[in-house]
């Protein structure tokens, strides 16, 4: 494994944070969210910020941007300097002129971060309109370019689409494009690739690297994916509970982590080597999907827009107690399949048999008795939680629907919160008061609370740091052992897939291109796309848990 080995001793400092403290309003009586953060990023350097979910990574980046939520959080101490300018003393106007042009940020949750009522192309163009004197045609050209740079297919259609018409990964790439389009001095990327498949991720990472090489962009990269860290970091910072616990060059940190927490974190990184196969199932499949088709309709005021065939002839079976992984390109139709299975959207054609019944054509009322047997964790945890409901209320909603008494439901909810590693007082808080990973854990807890037969998890762990991720995966495994839950697990993370899946299907452009036992597919990919996927897995030559490189050949 070759780490980046840039020497920045002479490079000018782009970002310098000294003693940063961010607090909740004094009336809350809670300790500061961030304490004494010191951080420096030099020209051309990539600093990766890793750490527990909820440790303050996003808050740090928002503080730099000067975009902390007004009534909730405020910088209460320290300094943030961009190339020597103290940002905290700038007027709002000066700060505005700086954003996107000199510091750009990619936000963690692309669905909520994009304006739902504007075409994504226009949202990118707006950056150019605001900060450059370019004319309409030039702007359009630049937008098309940048969309191509982030490897979006069908650029014309995508630019014309509204956010809700794009897949999670496509939205994330829109965010990335928006941040990159002006080639800023400092790029803050808050988990920019969690929703991307590894091939796309690789392209994005190289795009950022390219930018860095050309302009000396300084990058603050927040991620949970140690593979990515291994690939791109110059320096790694580890955060926990609002404090920077360790900061070291990547080489040193991966080989010789100083802090116990860092060691624990690295130990939790799952291996790319598929786990040992479980015995073949004997029971009949609990979920059967046959020739599933989904076409998104065109619409348009007078003229019909072209349609999108998001799923074509998808067919698979899952036996009780087994885990099926769905991997594949972003925009290949994974979420579409999941939403069809859940019957949240109407499949265009095909059959979905849940415990023997075809639910593809059932009415709303007819579906109700089946709902409790199949649950979902959405790709977009924030939007899938009602912002006006406390977490407790969301967690008990399902059980209450099926007759669990309130006190019992609450007790369960509290247990589940503990299981997913959230404090008990979370029950009374609202979704917007949590970090991205915390919200995802809430969403998982909500689905699990129903004790379903089938759990569809759409990128359920991608926003979690590896240690929590490991806990959650253990939790799922445990549930599976105890209750025989069947899991359909949609993921980009081949490490995760390798660790928990019995079977894997690989999707590309709405079709299943490869299908089989996890060990077989991941170890000996037959389809060229699968092979490309595995090739692209970051950090696949490093054995994180043991702080050393893998023996050559072990991974492929």
């Amino acid at each position, binding site marked *: 494994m070759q780490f980046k080995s840039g020497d920045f001793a002479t490079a000018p400092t782009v970002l310098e944070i000294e003693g940063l403290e961010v607090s909740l309003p004094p009336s809350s009586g809670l300790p500061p969210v961030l304490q004494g953060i010191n951080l420096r990023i030099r020209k051309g350097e990539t600093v990766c910020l890793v750490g527990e979910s909820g440790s303050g990574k996003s808050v740090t980046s928002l503080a730099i941007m000067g975009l902390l939520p007004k009534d909730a959080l405020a910088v209460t101490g320290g300094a943030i300097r961009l190339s020597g300018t103290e940002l905290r003393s700038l007027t709002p106007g000066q700060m505005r002129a700086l954003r996107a042009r000199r510091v750009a940020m990619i936000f963690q949750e692309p669905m909520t*971060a*994009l304006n*739902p009522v504007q075409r994504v192309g226009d949202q990118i163009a*707006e950056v150019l309109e605001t900060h450059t004197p370019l004319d309409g045609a030039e702007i359009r050209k630049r937008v098309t370019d940048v969309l191509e740079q982030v490897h979006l297919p069908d650029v014309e259609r995508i630019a014309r689409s509204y956010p809700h018409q794009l897949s999670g990964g496509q939205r994330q790439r829109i965010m990335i494009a928006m941040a990159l389009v002006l080639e800023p001095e400092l790029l803050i990327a808050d988990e920019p690739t969690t929703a991307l498949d590894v091939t796309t991720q690789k392209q994005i990472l190289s795009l950022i690297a390219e930018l860095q090489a050309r302009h000396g962009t300084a990058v603050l990269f927040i991620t949970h994916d140690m593979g990515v860290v291994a690939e791109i970091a110059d320096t790694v910072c580890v955060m926990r509970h609002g404090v920077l616990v360790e900061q070291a060059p990547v080489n040193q940190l991966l080989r010789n982590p100083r802090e116990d927490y860092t060691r624990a974190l690295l130990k939790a990184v799952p291996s790319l080597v598929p786990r040992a196969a479980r015995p073949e199932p004997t029971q009949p499949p609990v979920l059967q999907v046959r020739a599933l088709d989904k076409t998104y309709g065109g619409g*348009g005021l*007078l003229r019909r827009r072209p349609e999108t065939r998001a799923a074509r002839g998808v067919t698979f079976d899952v036996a009780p107690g087994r885990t099926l992984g769905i991997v594949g390109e972003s925009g290949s139709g994974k979420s579409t399949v999941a939403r069809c299975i859940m019957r949240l959207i109407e499949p265009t054609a095909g059959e979905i048999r849940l415990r023997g019944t075809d639910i593809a054509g059932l009415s709303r009322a007819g579906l109700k008795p089946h709902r409790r047997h199949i649950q979902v964790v959405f790709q977009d945890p924030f939007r899938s939680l009602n912002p006006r409901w406390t977490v407790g209320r969301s967690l008990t909603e399902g059980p209450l629907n099926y007759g669990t008494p309130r006190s019992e439901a609450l007790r369960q909810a509290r247990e589940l919160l503990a299981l997913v590693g959230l404090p008990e007082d979370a029950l009374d808080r609202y979704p917007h008061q949590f970090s991205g990973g915390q919200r995802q854990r809430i969403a998982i807890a909500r689905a699990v609370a129903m004790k379903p037969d089938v759990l569809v998890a759409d990128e359920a762990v991608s926003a979690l740091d590896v240690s929590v991720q490991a806990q959650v995966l253990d939790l799922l495994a445990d549930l599976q052992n105890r209750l025989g839950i069947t899991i359909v697990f949609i993921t980009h993370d081949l490490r995760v897939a390798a660790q928990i899946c019995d079977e894997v299907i690989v999707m590309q452009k709405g079709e299943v291109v490869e299908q089989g036992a996890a060990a077989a597919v991941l170890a000996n990919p037959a389809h060229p796309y699968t092979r490309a996927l595995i090739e692209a897995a970051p950090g696949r030559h490093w054995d994180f848990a043991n702080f050393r490189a893998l023996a050559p050949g072990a991974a492929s």
Partner: protein
Amino acid sequence: MFGYILRRILAVIPVLLIVAIFVFLLLRLTPGDPAAIIAGDMATPAQLERIRDQMGLNDPLHIQFITWMGALLQGDLGVSLISNTDVTTMIGQRIWPTIHIALLTIVISVAVAVPLGVLAAWRHRSWVDYAVMSFSVLGFSVPVFVIGYLFILAFSLTLGWLPVQGYTPPTQDFGAFLSRAILPALTLATIYIALIARMTRASMLEVLSEDYIRTARAKGVAERRVLFRHALRNAAVPIMTIVGTGFALLISGVVVTESVFNIPGIGRLTVDAILARDYPVIQAMILLTSAIYVLVNLVIDISYTFFDPRIRY
């Protein structure tokens, strides 16, 4: 979408049919006798009876309904019982002043209220917010005629800038139209400004706490643009609803302003007709307003899909 619009336009027909039956029955349930108004105070019961016969008011209800519907299907709205004038002509004379003033009112209201509401939401709980609130409260709770009188007192009687009353069609003399229409439009606009500003504020407050607003700011977009391009459009659906239903209401005429400013609009026509039980005029007016409502509502519904592409029909 095109099919949807077509369906909605076709839906006018059943709506009008329901309204027609409903209004017809409602009118026949209300006491009142157009014959009496025609005949005047001195008429004897026998004379009244003869006039009623003459006007067909003594026919059985279903006959009256069929006669009326029959004529209606041929596009004939009938003749006013009181003035013997063709109803189509009457409405034709009276609807334009109402439409012109309604348009002017809505334009003024939206132009003033939306920025005010945006400002109030942006400076939530500041003096701007409270000032907008106080203004709205006045707009809600002061009778329209008071506002009208005050405007007349100020602009016409004291300053002598504008005429007190009357209406000139814009096609005839646009300057004269404006000078006469501006006060009634402003008067009506006070209520609508109040309502729309409050609605804008309420709706904007929800939107301003969304993540994409933060994104827009992160792009370095000017605050004004953040408010008007990003937030307002997301907040637009309820605002549009209020504007739309308000416009529909204005189109059906506002009696008080029409009286205070002596505008020959359809609001007065309707009320006069109701008070005189001039059945053909009332029926025609209500049919007309419901047709207008259906169309205005269609426009509102279509505008939703423009403001919020997630809305589908």
